[in-house]
């Protein structure tokens, strides 16, 4: 094992620097208008925000419900009956940061922000 304290401090500095750079990349990554909604690992819905009409969609998982709102070419979680409501607080889907509901295993993200980018 490396006993130099400076080495471990350097490791921390590198981790922090890399994380910050990765955050900036994720926040500024360009995205299209296609949105993928996944539940429990399966794609349950795909949207093209440029063409969607304003409406709300419900997703039920083991009796628990998430309500997704599509409005003016944007998408957000309107309500959820989980304890933490993280997905609701995320607000409108804007950048590479997906809307995630951990308890109900639901994710909402731009299509070109992950697998599709690799596929191309």
């Amino acid at each position, binding site marked *: 094992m490396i006993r130099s*304290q400076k080495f471990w401090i350097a490791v*921390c500095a590198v981790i922090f620097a890399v994380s910050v750079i990765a*955050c900036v990349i*994720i926040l500024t990554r360009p995205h299209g208008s296609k949105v993928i909604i996944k539940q429990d690992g399966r794609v349950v819905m795909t949207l093209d925000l440029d063409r969607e009409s304003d409406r709300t969609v419900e997703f039920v998982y083991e009796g628990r419900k998430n309500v997704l709102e599509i409005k003016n070419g944007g998408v957000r979680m309107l309500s959820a009956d989980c*304890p933490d409501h993280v997905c609701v*607080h995320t607000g409108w889907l804007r950048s590479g*940061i997906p809307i995630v509901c*951990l308890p109900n295993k639901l*994710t909402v*993200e731009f299509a070109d922000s992950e697998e599709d980018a690799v596929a191309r």
Partner: protein
Amino acid sequence: MNIKRMTVLALLTSLALIIFVVELQMPPIAPIPGMKIGFANIVTVYAVYKFNARECALLLLSRILLGCLLAGNMISLIYSLSGGALCLAGMLLLHKVIDKKHMWVCSILGAVLHNIGQTVAALALMQTAAVLSYFPFLTAVGCVAGLFTGICAQLVVDRIDLSD
């Protein structure tokens, strides 16, 4: 384990739980699942430098189980357990090579390991790579949070001696 040590561990567990419950009342830093400072880990970092591996594991396990019960959020139990286990294992190894003057370094690395554990659990449960987008945000905040909890633990480690 004698009665004295067990009582001290119980005392530390309740201290960690009080800190945990107070933190529950604070508004979230950002709408990212699992992102928090984790003030209760001041106790964990302190314990790593004061107690043996078995005692630390007992302390952390009871804190996580009781904490999830108090929070009423059993879904987060899996994330807390996987993150906590990796964090504790890493810190127990690191405290052998990182001295007491650099506890904050150990704490930062522990926090990052906690984030790795959380993200792996999320990947396994959610089965989507979307959760990976959160990882850099978790580690960036984790570094700052780990630094803070580490400095706090470092300040008390020589002042409060409960281990004998």
